[in-house]
């Protein structure tokens, strides 16, 4: 069953036509990745799905409900979370406060249990829960950003460039965690420049080029596709 269905999405920045009729879907339980070069429109697509940007045309349906143009804060309670590009943790707030913000839309009684879940998955965050987020290392901030997104108990977790700026060993670790989250039942939509890593973990993939989807299909098949290899896998 398709959990997220995007149809003929058009997004503009002023007069710049950034997304030109993108359609894709994410089925329950899948890991789907959008890959593509810098400026292909991957982040714009995610931000539009999450409700930070308003599309000019097109439909976005999440679990059957139309959400195109709905503000992000109203979408979160329905079970969609975006872990944004550049992590964007609240630098001046403590780790715990960041996580509490992640659970902003949840009833007060459920926060403690979710905090425990996140701390079990990211023991590092538990050790540092009183520390101000701005003092964490890049990898820790990425874990915090993911933990924060998980606090809303999303059915669909969208991750925008989780590997950005991280050492290879940390990238492996982050991708292991993404795999674990998926096996635990979270559907994942992943945007990555690191196409190799993204394709190795995903079920299906879409290739974006200047605002259009130019290829789609099974992730492992795409990994062996000549064009994709040449353009993104080096």
């Amino acid at each position, binding site marked *: 069953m398709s959990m997220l269905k995007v149809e003929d999405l058009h997004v503009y920045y002023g007069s710049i036509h950034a997304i030109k009729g993108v359609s894709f879907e994410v089925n329950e339980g899948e890991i789907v990745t959008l890959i593509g070069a810098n400026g292909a429109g991957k982040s714009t697509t995610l931000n539009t799905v999450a409700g*930070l940007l308003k599309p000019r045309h097109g439909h976005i349906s999440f679990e059957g409900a139309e959400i195109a143009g709905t503000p992000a804060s109203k979408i*979160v309670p329905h079970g969609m*979370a*975006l872990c944004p590009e550049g992590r*964007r943790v609240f*630098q001046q*707030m403590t780790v715990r406060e960041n996580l509490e*913000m992640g659970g902003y839309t949840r009833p007060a009684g459920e926060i403690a249990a979710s905090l425990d879940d996140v701390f079990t998955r990211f023991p590092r965050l538990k050790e540092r829960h009183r520390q101000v987020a701005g003092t964490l290392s890049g990898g820790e901030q990425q874990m915090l950003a993911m933990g924060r997104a998980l606090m*809303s108990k999303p059915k669909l977790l969208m991750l925008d460039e989780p590997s950005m*700026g991280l050492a290879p060993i940390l990238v492996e670790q982050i991708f292991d965690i993404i795999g674990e989250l998926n096996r635990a039942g979270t559907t994942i939509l992943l945007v990555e420049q690191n196409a190799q890593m993204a394709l190795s973990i995903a079920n299906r993939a879409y290739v974006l080029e200047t605002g259009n989807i130019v290829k789609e299909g099974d992730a492992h098949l795409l990994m062996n596709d000549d064009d994709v290899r040449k353009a993104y896998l080096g």
Partner: protein
Amino acid sequence: MIQFLSYLLNGISLGSVYAIIALGYSMVYGIAKMLNFAHGDVIMIGAYISFCAIQYWNLPPAIAIVLAILVCTVLGIVIERLAYKPLRQATSLSVLITAIGVSWLLQNIALLIWGANPKSYQSLVGFGSLTLFDGQLHITSETFITIAANIVIMIALTLFTGKTKMGKAMRAVSEDKGAAELMGINVNATISMTFAIGSGLAAIAGVLLCSAYPVLMPTTGSMPGIKAFTAAVFGGIGSIPGALIGGILLGLIEIMGKAYVSTELGDALVFAVLIIVLLVKPTGLLGKKIHEKV
């Protein structure tokens, strides 16, 4: 020595008023990233409302203060909604000019309703004064209450932003609106609430200011407003303890300057402080610089 003590108390008391006004500037700047130059005029409106409540409607002082707070809170929300919200995506210069426009609008509305003649404001917190050192030192109840109100407000706001869900959401919005929106925080409602709190505080500042310096006219709010803005920058705009420290120090500089340097130069000293701070430490005493980690 006793003279100095008296100046000291007056300075702290005046500084407390500045600190309460500076909080409004600082909170709004922190959240909306704009300088609300109409803030000083909300003080004036608060003072006029409480003046009318006492003088014309014969209400008790406590009710007059509550009424002033309510009116200013609503006024703050309305100003944000009508004047600033449509400019959320505009350049900061447009917003600044709009804020100056709102300031003039409020002054002229006051001129229209209450006229240009100064009103003599009857203190709402005057319960006599305390005399110490064989009558050499008088401490008025206004001084006490202003300082006490400042302390209570600072503690309350610190607890609010540090401990409550709403207050933490405000801090989140002030850091990153997009990320806050992704948490499910209604950013517009949060901005609106910040204006409400800031304007409610402005009403309290108006009552305290006019109780200590009882001349009320449509321009009453502008000078204290600008000085409080200086205090906010001095302490580090966006920071609650910064507003407190900046306000108190500025009040002290003004009173001590008037007492020991020259009566005419008191105000000039205040603004000299602004210039020096901007030159030496543009982020203010407690202002933070954020370093991004990759």
